C-alpha cells in the first residue's frame, strides 16, 4: 500500500496533479518518470523521510511498492 506521503512526493516532483500509484506501478508507466527524473524523485523521497538510500538499494527497486518497502524499512528498521 502506497502512503499518501510517498504519493505526494512523487507526484509533486513529476508535476502531476494526481496519478494513481499502486504497489505494482513501475516508473516507465508514469508520465515524466524517466531516468533523469528518477534520481530527482529519490532525492526528494530521501529528504522527505530523512533517510539515505545506497546505490545497490536503488538499483534493486523495481516498482513503487519496492520503494515504499525500502522507505518503511529505513524509517522503522526493526519492522
Amino acid at each position, binding site marked *: 500500500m502506497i502512503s499518501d506521503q510517498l504519493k505526494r512526493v512523487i507526484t509533486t516532483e513529476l508535476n502531476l*496533479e494526481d496519478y494513481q500509484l499502486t504497489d505494482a506501478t513501475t516508473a*516507465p508507466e508514469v*508520465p*515524466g518518470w*524517466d*531516468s*533523469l*527524473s528518477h534520481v530527482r524523485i529519490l532525492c526528494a523521497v530521501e529528504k522527505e523521510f530523512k533517510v*539515505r538510500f545506497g*546505490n545497490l538499494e536503488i538499483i534493486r527497486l523495481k516498482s513503487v511498492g519496492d520503494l515504499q518497502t525500502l522507505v518503511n524499512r529505513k524509517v522503522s528498521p526493526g519492522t
Partner: protein
Amino acid sequence: MKHGSFPNASGEVLVERWLHHAAARPDDEALVHWVAGEERFAWTWKELLRAAAGFVRTLRQHGVGRGDVCALIIRHHRDFYPLYIAVAALGALPAVLAYPNPRLHPDKFRQGLAGMAQRSGLDWVLTEQSLDDMVRPLSLAAHSTVKGILYPLEWRREAGTATLNDLRDASITPDDPCLLQHSSGTTGLQKPVMLTHRNVLEHLDRYGRAIALTSADKVVSWLPLYHDMGLIAAFHLSLGLGVPLVQMDPFEWVQAPALFIEALAREGGTISWLPNFAYNFMADRIRDLDPECHGMRLDQVRLLINCSEPVRADSHEKFASRLAAMGLKRGALATCYAMAETTFAVTQSTPGVEPVQVEADRNNLALGFYQPAASVPESRTCLSSGRLIPGCELKIVNAKGKELPDGAIGEMLIRSVSMFEGYRNNPEQTSTVLKDGWYHSGDYGFRLDGEHFVIGRKKDLIIVAGKNLYPEDIEDAIAAVPGVIAGRIVAFGIDNAATGTEEIGVVAETIEKDPAGIKALRLAIMQAAMRIDVTVTRVYLAPPRWLVKSSSGKPSRPVNRQRALTELQTNGGPSL
C-alpha cells in the same frame, strides 16, 4: 601517479591492432566488465581474443561473412566485447544499437529497427533471446534484408579449439569499412555513419596524442556503446591503443550515478568522457559523507572530458566543488567537440589545464559576433571546447559560405583525415552535409586565438542528456493523440541550467476547453511521447490558429518556442 609513454601499437586494420596487444601483453587486463555489487570480471588480452576467435567460428557457421551489417542489440554483458571483436574480424560491420528501454513501445522499437534495416541494409541481428518477440517479425517482413536473427549469448563457444589465427584475414584492407554508427534520434531518422579502419585508427592515434594518453592510463566509462562517445572514445580508443577499459552498465549508472565515482576510485581510473548533464546529475546525487564514498580518492583522475552536448562552466563548477574533498583536481575537467561524422573529436582542451572561459556580451552574440561583456547582467559565460586536434581543420562561415574572422559567429565546417565515408545507402543526405570535403556541422560558434566556442545550432535538433532528438519525431508521436489538431504541434528544447541539459516543451493546438479534458489531454500528450522514449516536461495547450506559420506554411518552431516561453513567463502559458 604512474608515468607511462604513448602506447605503441602496430596494425593498419582493427584486428591487427588487437592481435598486436594480445601478443605484446597477453596477460594484462584489456577490459573490465563492471557490474554493481558483483565481483569485477576482467578480460585479459589473450582470453578476450580467444573468446572472440570462438565466436568467429560459430558466426561463420551461421553464414555471417565479409561486408554483412550485424546489428548488436545486447544489454551490458561480458560476452559482448569478444562478440564485437569477432564480427569486426570477419570483415563484417558491427552496428551497436540501443537496447530497448522499458518505456519504449515494442511497436516503435520494431518500426525503428525496420526503418534502420531498410536504410542500413541490416543483414543479421545479434541479440538476446528475451527480445525474440520484438525482433523476429523483422526477418519475416516482405523485402527484408535480414538474413537471420542470432542469439550468440546462448552459444557454447568453441574457445577450446579456436586460436587467434581464426581472427586473421589478410584480405581486409585499411580502406574497407569497419563499423556503422547510427546517429541518435528516436524512430525514423537515424543516419548510418560508415567508417573505415583507416578512419578509426588514424583518429585513435591522433586523438590519443591530443589527450596525452599513456600506457599508465585507465579509462572508466558508463557510456552506452551505441553512442559515438562510448563506442569510439571509450571502447575503440582503449582497445586500439591498448589502454585498459572499465565498462559499466549505463542502465545501472543512470539509476545510481554515484556508482561512477565508486568505479573510478576503486579501479584507479584516470580518464572518462561525460555529456554535460552528467556533471549536474552526479553532483546532485553524490554526498562525500556517504558511507559508500568513505575513503574514496580521485587524485589520480587526469581527464573528465565534457562532450556531446553544449558544455557549461556552471556544470563544471558544481561538479568540481562537490568532489574537491575526494581529491579531484580542477585541471582534470576538460572539454571536447566531436561528432560521429568525423569519427569522433575535432577539438580538445589542453590536458591538465582548465578549459578557457570568456564572458561574452549577450547582445553582440545575438548580432553575430563575440565581444567581452562590460557588465555581469549582459554577459554569457562561454566555455571553450578546445583547440583543433591534429588532422582536423575547422572554418567558420557565414550563410554565403564566406570564411569569417576570429570572434565572428557562423556555422562550423570541418575537414578531417578521419572524415566518414558518407551515410550508408544515402548519397542524397550525404551530399547535403558533405560538400567539397567539408562537413557542414549545423553548429554555430566562434573562434578566438585558436580556441573554439560552440554556442548554438542551425538545426532544430534537441539534445537531452547527450541524446539527439528530432522535433519531427516527437510531433509525429503526439499528432496521433485525440483532441490535438493535426499538423498544429511544435516541439522544441528549453535550456535548463539546473539539470545542465535541455528539456522538451510542446505547444499543441486543441479545441478542448473543459478543465478535466485539458488535464487528460496534457497527460495523453506526455504518454504519447513516452511511447517513443521521450519525456515531455512542458505541455502548452493553445487554441486553434495560435501557432505562427513560417514561410513554408508549417508552424515555425523558433518563433512559437519564443512565444510560448514568453507567455509562460507573463501569464502561465497560452490561454485557451
